[in-house]
C-alpha cells in the first residue's frame, strides 16, 4: 500500500509528523467519502435541524463509540486544526483519548485539552463550559438522531411528521412527565426546536447544556454513524428547548459547588470517594476545572459533613476527604 497521501495544503502547513501512521489517506477516510460527508454537512447547515442521510462508512471502532462524530470530524478537519476530544466533559477518558490519538495518527493534527486552543472539538454528552467562539466547530456524537423515535417507530412516518411540522406528540411525552411527576423529568437529550422549524435531538447532553446551544457562535455538527444521519446548527441560530407556558424549561442546579475548583456555574458530577459514604461533587468539564484551579480558585475539598449527617461513626469517615 502507498504511503500517506498528503492533504494538498499539508506540506506547507506542518512539518511531517513522526507520530502519523502510514498507509492511510489524510484523516483516515478517502477523499470521495469526505466530499460526500461535506455535502451532507452543507445541506444540514442550510436546513438547521434537518437530518440529512449520508453513506456512513465502517469505522475502526464499534457503533456507539462515536463513529458518526469521527466521520464528521474527519471530513471537516484540516492539517492546521487543533483537535480536542471530550467524553462526558473529560479529556482523559478511554473514548476521548483514543479518538484523539486516532486523529493524531491518521491526520497528524495537533491535539489539545484546552477548550480555547482547539479549533475542532468532538464531544460525547457535554458542551464545554468555556463559551465557544466563531473560529471553532463542535462535533457531537449522536446515538439516536430522531427525537420522535420513541413516540413513533416508523421512519417513514417520523419523516412525514418533520416535513409537516406535526410535533404534537413531542409535547405529549412532556405532558406525561408533568402528569406523573409534577415536572418535566427528562434530563438529557432534551428535545429542542431549531430556528422555529425542526425539532431536534441534541444528543445525550444534559439539559444543563441546552441553553448553550442557543445562538452559539460556533458551528455545531451532529453525526450519527449507525443511523447514518448528519444534522447541523449554524452559528447564531435560535435553539429553543420545548416546554409548556406554565411549566417552563429549567436546568439542573446543585446545592454544592465544585469540590476542587469551587465553581458554582458548571455541571457537576457526583464522585464516590470511599466505601463509607464519602463523596464529592466535581466539575464534569475537566479542562474548565483545571483552568480555574490554575487561576487560583479552590474548592472545599468535598462535603466533609456528609458522613456525620448520615450517622456513620466519626472515626471511619476521614479517608475520603484528606486530599
Amino acid at each position, binding site marked *: 500500500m502507498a504511503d500517506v497521501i498528503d492533504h494538498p495544503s499539508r506540506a506547507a502547513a506542518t512539518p511531517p509528523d513522526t507520530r502519523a501512521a502510514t498507509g492511510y489517506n489524510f484523516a483516515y477516510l478517502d477523499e470521495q467519502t469526505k466530499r460526500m460527508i461535506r455535502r451532507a454537512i452543507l445541506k444540514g447547515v442550510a436546513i438547521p435541524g434537518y437530518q440529512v442521510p449520508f453513506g456512513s462508512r465502517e469505522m475502526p471502532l464499534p457503533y456507539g463509540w462515536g463513529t458518526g462524530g469521527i466521520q464528521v470530524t474527519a471530513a471537516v478537519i484540516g492539517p492546521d486544526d487543533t483537535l480536542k476530544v471530550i467524553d462526558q466533559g473529560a479529556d482523559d477518558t478511554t473514548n476521548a483519548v483514543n479518538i484523539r490519538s486516532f486523529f493524531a495518527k491518521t491526520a497528524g493534527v495537533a491535539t489539545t485539552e484546552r477548550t480555547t486552543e482547539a479549533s475542532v472539538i468532538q464531544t460525547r454528552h457535554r458542551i464545554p463550559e468555556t463559551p465557544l467562539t466563531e473560529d471553532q466547530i463542535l462535533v457531537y456524537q449522536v446515538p439516536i438522531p430522531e427525537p420522535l423515535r420513541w413516540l413513533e417507530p416508523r421512519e417513514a412516518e417520523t419523516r412525514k411528521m418533520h416535513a*409537516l411540522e406535526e410535533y*404534537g*406528540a413531542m409535547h*405529549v411525552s412532556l*405532558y406525561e412527565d408533568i402528569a406523573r411527576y409534577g415536572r418535566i423529568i427528562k434530563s438529557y437529550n432534551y428535545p429542542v426546536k431549531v430556528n422555529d422549524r425542526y425539532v431536534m435531538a441534541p444528543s445525550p447532553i444534559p439539559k444543563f447544556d441546552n441553553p448553550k446551544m442557543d445562538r452559539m457562535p460556533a458551528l455545531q455538527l451532529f453525526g450519527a454513524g449507525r443511523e447514518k444521519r448528519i444534522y447541523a446548527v449554524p452559528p447564531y441560530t435560535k435553539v429553543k428547548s420545548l416546554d409548556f*407556558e406554565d411549566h417552563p424549561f429549567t436546568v439542573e442546579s446543585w446545592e454544592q459547588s465544585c469540590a476542587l475548583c469551587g465553581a458554582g456555574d458548571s455541571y457537576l458530577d457526583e464522585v464516590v470517594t470511599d466505601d463509607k459514604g464519602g463523596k464529592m461533587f466535581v466539575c464534569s468539564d475537566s479542562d474548565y476545572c483545571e483552568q480555574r484551579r490554575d487561576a487560583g480558585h479552590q474548592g472545599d475539598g468535598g462535603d466533609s459533613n456528609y458522613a456525620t449527617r448520615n450517622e456513620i461513626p466519626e472515626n471511619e469517615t476521614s479517608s475520603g476527604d484528606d486530599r
Partner: protein
Amino acid sequence: MTVDPVFQRPSPLLQVRGITHRYGHHIGCRDVGFDLYPGEVLGIVGESGSGKTTLLKCISGQMEPSEGSVEYQTRDAGLIDLFRMSEARRRLLMRTDWGIVYQNPRDGLRMRVSAGANVGERLMAIGDRHYGHIRSEAVDWLERVEMDIGRIDDMPHTFSGGMQQRLQIARNLVTKPRLVFMDEPTSGLDVSVQARLLDLIRGLVRTLGIACVIVTHDLGVVRLLSHRLMVMKGGSVVESGLTDQVLDDPQHPYTQLLVSSILPV
C-alpha cells in the same frame, strides 16, 4: 330570483360522488355517492365484506379510492376535494375538524400514554402549550363522556373496553370537530355497556351538532342514532333513505332479509 337566506338549504358538509375502490380485480365498493349535511347522522349497514369499512376509509381520507371524489366543506375555502388538497392540509383537517372512532380502541388511542394525554394530544398538536389548560380540557371531556376523573393519569390498557371506547370519543371531540366517522363503535361491548355508550353518543351528537357517519352491522345502533341509512351489499348501495322508512318498510330483498334477521328479545 333571490331567495331569502333563511329558507336556503344549507350546503352539504361532505359531498361523495361515484366512489369505487378496487383491490386488484376484487371490488371493495362500487359507485357510492351521497351528501351529508351539518348535524346529520348517516348510518351505513351491511353484512361483513359488503364494503362498509372500505367506503369509510375512502371518505375519511385514510385511503384514496380508485375512482370518484370526496369533497368537504372547509371552514375557510368552501368545498375542496379531499385527495386534491395538500397532504399537510388533509392531515390537519383530520385532527381538527374531523374525528375518527375506530372499532378497536387500540387503533385510535395511544396505549402507552395516560388517558389525560390521549385527550390532550390533539390540543397540543394544534399548538396549545399551556399545561393547565390542556389538563382542565381533559378533565372536562372525561366528565362529558362519564369517566372517572380519578383515572385521568391511568394507562388506557387498564381500562375496560367500554371505557376505552369512551376515551376514544373524548379524544376525538376535544377539538370540537364538525364531522365524526365511527367504524363499529359498539361492537365487542356487552349490551348494557353498548346501551350506555349509544346513549352518550346520541347526547353528544345532538348537543354539539356534529355530523356523523356510522358504519355498523347492528341495526339497533342505526335505529337509535342515525337519521338516514344506506344499506350495502357486495360493494354497492342497495337501498337508502330515512332510517325509519328503510327499517319499517324495506323495499330491497336484501334489506328485507336483514331486517327480518334481527333476533327478537
